[in-house]
């Protein structure tokens, strides 16, 4: 096991290109400590999602890592075979995406889908996967888990679907959760519920979170540290207090000006 002083995730000089285009992610380096929440903030096209997908080795066709290293608990993920990566994904590292609907299998009942993750990554001795799934659905505060488990994704609301995604993500006690815009597709009043749930689950499982978002408010609300990405590079990083209260980079300053406080109650 890791000692607290060693980073859980260590990305060093990561550069990603698509075809012959200039790099989409360029010389990106950062660390995530165990249990920590780190935000990556930037506008669309800044390379934040590609950075996350590189860690999971899920780059879309045409994309490849040309240099840099990705160490997870000192294991070189960038050198792993596809077979070994499959053990990591959904096991040690799991992911929650923006749109829960496109991430769930539309023709499979909810309970089966959540149980599938447990079946793949957890020891049978820990219990029947389906029972584990029901326990997880209860843990994410879904009303009447037995009933939800028998339903199909289209029968749930957006907020309920995202709760299911979170149940799936945490069922194997991941050490790192990568959350890509987890609350963006939801209604604003549901958004906060989901952020609270993620924090609750994170604390229960001691999981570190890499949160990717364009919403600075979400970063300020949930993260310990933040990396600001612009045109494929990290332009500023530090604790949320340092970066969001006293931004030094002109780009960060511009971003913050664009979201001047709408509320002053």
């Amino acid at each position: 096991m890791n000692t607290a002083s060693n980073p859980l995730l260590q990305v060093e000089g990561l550069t990603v290109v698509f075809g012959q285009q200039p790099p989409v992610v360029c010389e990106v380096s950062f660390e995530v400590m165990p249990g920590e929440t780190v935000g990556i903030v930037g506008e669309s096209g800044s390379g934040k999602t590609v950075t996350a997908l590189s860690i999971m080795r899920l780059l879309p066709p045409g994309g490849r890592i040309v240099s840099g290293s990705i160490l997870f608990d000192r294991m070189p993920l960038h050198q792993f075979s596809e077979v070994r990566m499959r053990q990591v994904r959904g096991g040690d590292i799991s992911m929650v995406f923006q749109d829960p609907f496109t991430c769930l299998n539309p023709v499979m009942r909810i309970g089966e889908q959540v149980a599938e993750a447990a079946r793949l990554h957890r020891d049978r001795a820990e219990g029947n996967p389906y029972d584990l799934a029901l326990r997880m659905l209860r843990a994410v505060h879904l009303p009447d888990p037995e009933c939800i488990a028998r339903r199909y994704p289209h029968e749930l609301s957006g907020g309920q679907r995202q709760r299911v995604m979170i149940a799936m993500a945490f069922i194997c006690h991941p050490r790192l959760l990568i959350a890509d815009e987890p609350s963006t597709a939801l209604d604003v009043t549901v958004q906060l519920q989901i952020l609270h749930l993620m924090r609750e689950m994170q604390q229960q499982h001691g999981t570190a979170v890499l949160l990717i978002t364009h919403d600075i408010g979400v970063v300020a609300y949930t993260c310990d540290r933040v990396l600001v990405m612009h045109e494929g590079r990290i332009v500023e990083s530090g604790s949320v207090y340092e970066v969001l209260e006293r931004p030094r980079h002109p780009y960060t300053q511009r971003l913050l000006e664009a979201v001047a406080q709408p509320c002053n109650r």
Partner: protein
Amino acid sequence: MQPLIEMREVRVHFPLQRGEVVHAVDGVNLTLTQGEAVGLVGESGCGKSTLARALLRLIPLTAGEVWFDGKPLHQIPEGQLRPLRKQMQIVFQDPMASLNPRLRIGHILVEPLEVHGLARGKQAWQQAGELLERVGLPSEYLHRYPHEFSGGQRQRICIARAIATQPRLLVADEPTSALDLSIRAQIHALLSALQRELHMAILFVTHDLHAVRQVCSRVLVMYLGKVVESAPVERLFTAPAHPYTCALLDAVLEPKPSQARRPRNLPAGDVPTAVRVPTGCRFHTRCPYAQQRCEVEEPSLQTTEAGHEVACHYPLSSGNTKTA
């Protein structure tokens, strides 16, 4: 003064199979005066876009009336609408989907001028150039195609096309939701400037409260097909009276950690479906302050003070925002 727009008890229902009905808009009154910018906010599915489209008669009303400058829009036959169409225009959320990819910008802008007989040929082309400059783009862009522009520039082109006929009403349906943060403020500023210069009324439909504050002077909050609160912008932000409005304001997270507020009472669960609308107050299933009366009796919009209306049996009073 006669209002420019008056909507009375407007309902828009969409039938589904098995006799079920989506109550998208369920009895809304809305007035817009000449040159006024009004915001219409609410979460997805609350009926705000449907209401905006019903206002322009882009979709038929199930019940109710829409008066435009004293004319009964709901009664005018389709064929006779065109002269009125000139006076009311719309800008949509996705600028790429609303620009024909095969037409040069010039043609896109000349079309409304020719359709409404405002200009033709060389003169129309020259006016199109002026329109582009008016929205902050150089007139040389007339010869380009939509794909050559960024999202923000495309939205400027859509705005130029909408103001080509010098409308008295502009409906902006989530015009900046698809744009990057740093571009949004520029488009909001452009809309505000045009509203003042052309003295046109704007109905600004959005879920972005920040945007409303930049553009509008009055705002209506919708929930499940009904208006639950209506107030001057500053009043709504400083003294919201409906628990739902409060929840919406609380959901806006501050960008500075030192100003982060603990949201007080989060509404529970999700927005119910508009097919089976809850009884009584539509918000009672999620409202942290709901009492028995809310489950049975539907509250109507009541004026609390000048220009501030709220549909709630137990409105929150200013300064005394309840904490549970």
